[in-house]
């Protein structure tokens, strides 16, 4: 296994479980399951035991390995020099499980659907661009930017609305962009984090070839997960593109006066997506956008920025739901934390977070107190 020479170096001191100021345990899997085995330290010790054949590839071991949301809280707070590799180690263990063919059924189904259908929803490719119908967003044909939406934004009903809002807003502000529609292929970020490195490479190479064939140089992504794959993983496979998350572009447009914002009175709290925040260090742009809206009051949750608590959807858990169910599921915990701020809106910048938190609100029966809105949806309110 990759990183096998590192796993013995974990002291299991537990700093990885916390926020930087120790406000609370901040590892979503540990918060849900509460056994030390589900914390990063426990996972490290079990991986070592597994490699040494001291424990077997049981269903519980698979659950432990796949319960990691790859949120990188452990990477942020581990005190050791190998901290950067923690999530990579857990993904490497998943790769081993995949190569053994022993993985939890929801993971297997997800990977199979991507392999067979090109998306986890088992929807036909020609449905992929339908979300854009009735919007001013055109098919890519040499525009400055490719607007890459990803599987969730293309097929999920809630996320499709977010995709349409983001795309329309950017077009309205004069950004030259187009979508690939039915020619868009899964970015593979979740395929990689779930341990199917071969399939990820295939998807990445297909995308890179397609982008190059279309002459694409610059990409705006809807989903931070796509942003992460294009920015951090594709260059190693020959895919060097100028990649932006849409909040970065939107912030720049507002800064330069290309979007005129009117008053929108609302109390808003912002939930940092792990793949925009901790994985890529972008904490400012979404906040800059929200703060620029007259009348909007931005109230931070206790855990924010590099200490933000994951919604539980990362690392493929959005699809596999290993962290779902019960009052200790991360999306429910995060929803209550948002409620505690006194805000009426949870602003998000990730379609997966949007869905996770909406589910959290439903489970907590807070529909009359909290609403989830994408940052772009809030901006659209202020524009219109």
């Amino acid at each position, binding site marked *: 296994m990759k990183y096998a020479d590192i796993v013995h170096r974990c*002291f299991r001191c*537990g*700093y990885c479980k*916390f926020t930087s100021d*120790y406000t609370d345990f901040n590892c979503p899997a540990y918060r849900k399951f*509460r056994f030390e085995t589900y914390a990063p330290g426990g996972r490290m010790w079990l991986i070592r035991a597994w490699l040494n054949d001291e424990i077997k590839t049981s269903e519980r071991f698979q659950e432990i390995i796949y319960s990691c949301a790859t949120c990188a809280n452990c990477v942020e707070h581990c005190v050791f020099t190998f901290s950067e590799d923690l999530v990579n180690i857990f993904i490497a263990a998943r790769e081993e499980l995949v190569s053994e063919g022993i993985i939890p059924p929801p993971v297997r189904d997800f990977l199979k659907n991507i392999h067979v259908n090109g998306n986890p929803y088992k929807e036909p490719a020609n449905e992929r661009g339908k979300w854009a119908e009735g919007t001013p967003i055109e098919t890519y044909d040499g525009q400055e930017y490719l607007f890459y939406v990803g599987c969730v934004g293309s097929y999920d009903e809630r996320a499709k609305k977010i995709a349409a809002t983001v795309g329309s807003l950017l077009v309205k502000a004069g950004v030259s962009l187009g979508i690939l529609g039915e020619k868009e292929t899964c970015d593979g970020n979740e395929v990689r984090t779930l341990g199917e490195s071969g399939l990820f490479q295939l998807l990445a190479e297909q995308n890179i070839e397609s982008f190059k064939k279309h002459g694409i140089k610059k990409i705006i992504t809807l989903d931070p997960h796509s942003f992460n794959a294009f920015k951090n993983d594709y260059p190693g496979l020959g895919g060097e593109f100028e990649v932006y998350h849409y909040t970065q572009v939107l912030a720049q447009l507002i800064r330069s006066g290309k979007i005129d914002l009117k008053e929108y009175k609302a109390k808003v709290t912002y939930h940092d997506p792990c793949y925009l925040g901790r994985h890529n260090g972008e904490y400012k742009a979404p906040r800059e956008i929200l703060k620029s809206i007259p009348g909007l009051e931005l109230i931070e949750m206790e855990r924010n920025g590099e200490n933000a608590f994951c919604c539980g959807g990362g690392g493929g858990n959005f699809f596999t739901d290993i962290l779902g169910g019960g009052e200790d599921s991360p999306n429910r915990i995060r929803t209550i934390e948002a409620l505690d701020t006194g805000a009426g809106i949870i602003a998000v910048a990730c379609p997966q977070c949007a869905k996770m938190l909406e589910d959290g609100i439903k489970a907590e029966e807070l529909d009359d107190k909290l609403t989830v809105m994408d940052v772009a949806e809030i901006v659209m309110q202020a524009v219109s």
Partner: protein
Amino acid sequence: MSDITQSLAEIVGESYVSDQPEEAYFYARDPGLMPTHEPDYVVIPKTVEEIQKIVRLANREKIPIVPMGAGMALTGLVIPLKGGIVVDMKRMTGIIEVNENARLVIVEGGTSQGLLKSHLEKNYPKLRHSIPDSPATATIAANVMIHGQGRLSQQYGFNSDMVAGLEVVLASGEVCKIGSNSISPDWFSKGAPMPDLSGLFLGWFGATGIITKVALKLYPRKKMRDVELFITDREDLIQDMVFELTHTEMVEDINIFTQPLPMIFKDNHHMAIFFTGDTDTELEFKRKMIWDSLDRFIRSKDGGFMGVSPAMKPTLLEMPQRSVSRFADVNKGGGFEYSGPIILVEKYPECARKIKELAEKYELGYSGMARIIGRGHCMMFGFAFTFNRADPDMMDRTRKALHEVSEFSLKAGGVFWKATADEQRMALDKMDPNTRALMGMIKKNIDPNGIMNPGNWEVK
């Protein structure tokens, strides 16, 4: 699912009980070097009532029961030496009450050091507790249970001396209040002016009951905090230096460390002297008093103050010091363990020489660190060795070195802190026979079935 597993699941919920190999593997060991023993079950209760039911079940079935905080003692105190049920306390993390003016807090049995620190900093900026340098996950209850020390131990003694009351689940399953809270709604004293029953639990490592609530004394938190480093190569003068420093009554904490790396540290002894103030005037006054107290050693060329670099200062001032955990991986091996006898400060030279001798004999990386307890009444001298978990030979050498430390400590007049099972046996063997008999009598009467963390403090 076995009958016991089913019974435990009915108490804590199916999600919070495990009899699976993964938990058995993990909870069979701590980060130290003690032999492993697998638990039969691990449970994570949420309430005192659940703990009562678990203990009653264990008593009825004669199953060992081992309470666990973060498991950071490193000496195997939460390893279930005779199997049974490990009770992971970390779902009980409440901070029940803070009495700001009386400087008291009541926390649940699984509340971590980090959580209390964070809560006080955010809500009670004038209050602090004596935080140890164990990782922030270490729990308050476990720390007082092992007589831990922290940042305020130089001023106020062991962290267990700062306990202001306990709630304990006895081996019978009954809940017992210890201290003023037994006859008053207020938790302000663990004993005085009545008989102090806290001694039936503190230091017993869970062999007499499970602590479910702790009232802790809090102390003034000053706005500013600083550190000076005094260096000497005269280990024989450490005791005199500590005497002068503690005489000022200006010092928050004194740590003395001796280590071979970096090279310029070798053969020197570094005294980290921490102090606090609400104003620059207060801080500078204390700094001057500290400097003046050691002036004669500077004049005799036996030591001097070292400039603390901007890079070094945050590391020293951090609470808890993450660098303590980092020591485990200085050689990319992920392991360290220390034996930390409580011993008179006058024994510092012997301790400092011993750790160096053992490190050379067993070819180990080391760090010696003394924390002064009380106004120089005694110290904890940590004999810390780093090892590589992937190197069985090095792990064995570390065990041998630590065993020699144990023998040395007893001979030098020290008392084991958070004693391993072997050290407990050594201590009981050397103990005054009447004291040993009293301990045996207490244990037998309080835990007649011997279910509470068996293998610890067992008087034969």
